């Protein structure tokens, strides 16, 4: 048969819905731009909503594999969901393309997992190093209390303290947290030079608004962290309080490349708002699938596809990226950015680049 089926499992409802929407949009955009046939095969996407609940993910993946006979499973908004599907990828020998979930361990759970998003180790280690070098001595941390948050915290701490920095306060906030006031007050009272923040993308806006309300912006406590808190999606609504926040991340909508300008314009045109890093991950994920199929000449054997993906390099809207042939995880530039006003809108403007960063969180063999 001539069709290649991709089972796309994303949180389209529930608290993580905006992640799912961005990825879904980006894939639609890509297929619109590049056509839906590759190597003579028609690409067919079957979108399923798992609401970020792992047992849904697992059942949907299993049904996609068994009934729909998909050739890829892709998507996965949160770590537990990606992990839940891992044994199925192994058993069925088909590629699992992770387009969002960000903890390090994921790619180790199956030889068929490839990731096009990022790991929190990538951005957190970089910002840790950067902080030490830029005269930040005392940091208070505020991270969401779940696996990615803990990853971010651990890796930041490792690099920051190794360089001589001091953690003066460490607060983990519950994932479903309505009000940041008491935590921010704690931050303020510990009088750090900067606060390291990781909250999942959607909560960044509220966080920053309350950060400003408490006058932390005026008291000279800077916000640093991985880029999730400054997701382009919401950045423009955060208000001037966000100005000056320094984060390390894989993507900024302000990335100064022609490709990115086109991507941002096309995305805005199609969906009415800016793409965030999730959209890019989805865009690259589908690109990876297309390229792998081209390489195998349309063959859908899972092992061949994975082989084809390993070591693949290409230019993404975020910059040059590649798939590490050993870990199947993404290798990408991490940029240090600062929030600035460009044409009256807030953007993460990149000012330093760390090239070809691998995930440092993999268990050392």
């Amino acid at each position, binding site marked *: 048969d001539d069709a290649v089926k991709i089972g796309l499992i994303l949180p389209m409802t529930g608290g993580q819905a905006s992640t799912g929407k961005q990825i*879904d949009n980006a894939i639609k955009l890509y297929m619109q731009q590049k056509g839906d046939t590759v190597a003579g095969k028609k690409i067919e996407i079957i*979108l399923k909503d798992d609401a970020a*609940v792992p*047992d849904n993910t697992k059942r949907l993946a299993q049904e996609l594999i068994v009934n729909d006979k998909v050739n890829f499973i892709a998507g996965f908004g949160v770590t537990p969901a990606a992990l839940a599907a891992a044994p199925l990828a192994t058993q069925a020998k088909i590629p699992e393309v992770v387009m969002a979930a960000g903890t390090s361990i994921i790619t180790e759970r199956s030889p068929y997992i490839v990731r096009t998003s990022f790991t929190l180790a990538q951005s957190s280690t970089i910002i840790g190093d950067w902080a030490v070098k830029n005269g930040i001595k005392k940091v208070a941390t505020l991270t969401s209390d779940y*696996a990615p948050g803990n990853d971010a915290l651990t890796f930041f701490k490792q690099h920051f303290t190794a360089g001589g920095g001091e953690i003066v306060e460490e607060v983990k906030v519950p994932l479903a947290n309505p009000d940041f006031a008491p935590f921010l007050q704690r931050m303020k009272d510990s009088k750090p030079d900067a606060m390291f923040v990781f909250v999942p993308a959607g909560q960044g806006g509220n966080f920053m608004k309350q950060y400003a309300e408490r006058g932390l912006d005026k008291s000279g406590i800077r916000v640093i962290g991985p880029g999730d808190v400054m997701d382009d999606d919401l950045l423009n609504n955060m208000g001037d309080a966000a100005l000056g926040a320094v984060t390390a991340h894989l993507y900024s909508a302000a990335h100064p490349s022609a490709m990115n300008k086109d991507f941002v314009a096309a995305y805005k045109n199609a969906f009415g708002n800016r793409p965030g890093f999730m959209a890019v991950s989805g865009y690259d994920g589908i690109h990876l699938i297309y390229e792998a199929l081209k390489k195998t000449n349309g063959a859908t054997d899972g092992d061949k596809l994975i082989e084809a993906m390993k070591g693949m390099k290409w230019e993404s809207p975020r910059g040059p990226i590649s798939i590490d042939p050993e870990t199947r995880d993404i290798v990408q530039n991490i940029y240090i950015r600062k929030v600035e006003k460009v044409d009256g809108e807030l953007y993460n403007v990149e000012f330093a680049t760390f090239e070809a960063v691998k995930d440092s969180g993999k268990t050392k063999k």
Partner: protein
Amino acid sequence: MTALFDVSTHAMASARWRASEVAFWALALACAFLFPSRYLIMTDIVRLGLFALSLDLILGYAGIVSLGHAAFFGIGAYSAGLLALHGIINEPVIALVAAGLVAALLGFLTSFLVIRGVDLTRLMVTLGIALLLEALAERFSNITGGTDGLQGIEMQPILGLFTFDMFGKTGFFYSLIVMFILFLLARRVVHSPFGLSLRAIRNNPLRAAAIGVPVNRRLIAVYTLAAFYAGIAGALFTQTTALASLDVFSFERSADLMLVLVIGGTGYLYGGLIGAVVFKMLQELFQSITPQYWLFWIGLVLVVIVLVGRARIHRWVLFVPNLIIRQFAGRKAAVAVPESDAS
């Protein structure tokens, strides 16, 4: 002596198997063979049905509302997961019972908090207990795996004979059999004097106590039993999916459960099972039509169900089956119809 005869026949009438019930189970079994490609969703339905049956025991019979039934589901799920993960009990059936007992123990302990108070209080206390357990499971991530859940569970074959397969066939038949056995037990229980006393308590606790029913003791007993059932459902969940993550305790799980049971109707045991079928099928249908906005259509169906009236819908749905059954089994054998609701 005809009075005595009448009394004993009528007294036993409610417990007699109806033709429609036999048909129901025959249909369930037939599904197993008719849709071999849908074992997974059918397992999901069976498990949810068992879970809803558990809620029916306390809500439909004893009138205890709960928004935190996932507490027992979750404890069952994690118990089964930990037993398998650490190889403590490798045989799934024994592990299943063990997990159920752990949940029952929790049910017994928390029942003392729950039997106090009015409906709303019970709703919130049960909810609070489930949320606390969720928070605990998150906190003790070294045992539970935190947000990632238990990873790497591998199930041994059932009774050493039947391995869990990728298509979910073993899992489905295993779940169906467990559910049927537990259903038989529940059926026995609700038609016993004990079951009758529960309905009496639900109807009027004041009067129940005034004829000598030890109200609290009965409520504790049935709450513990229901916790056992929910624990088994949770353990089945872990065993058939090889997963256990924090959302087993979630509010959404308890709330969905309530919807399932209410759709199907309370107080006649089949409500949970029918509700599970209807709810899952609707969800599946709408999700495949619109993965983004299916919630809207589910919501619309719920609203319509209520506005039209559940009783009326039951009557419409059962109109044809009842017609057929009457042809074969005479006038009185219509499909059981739920009692009016608690509260």
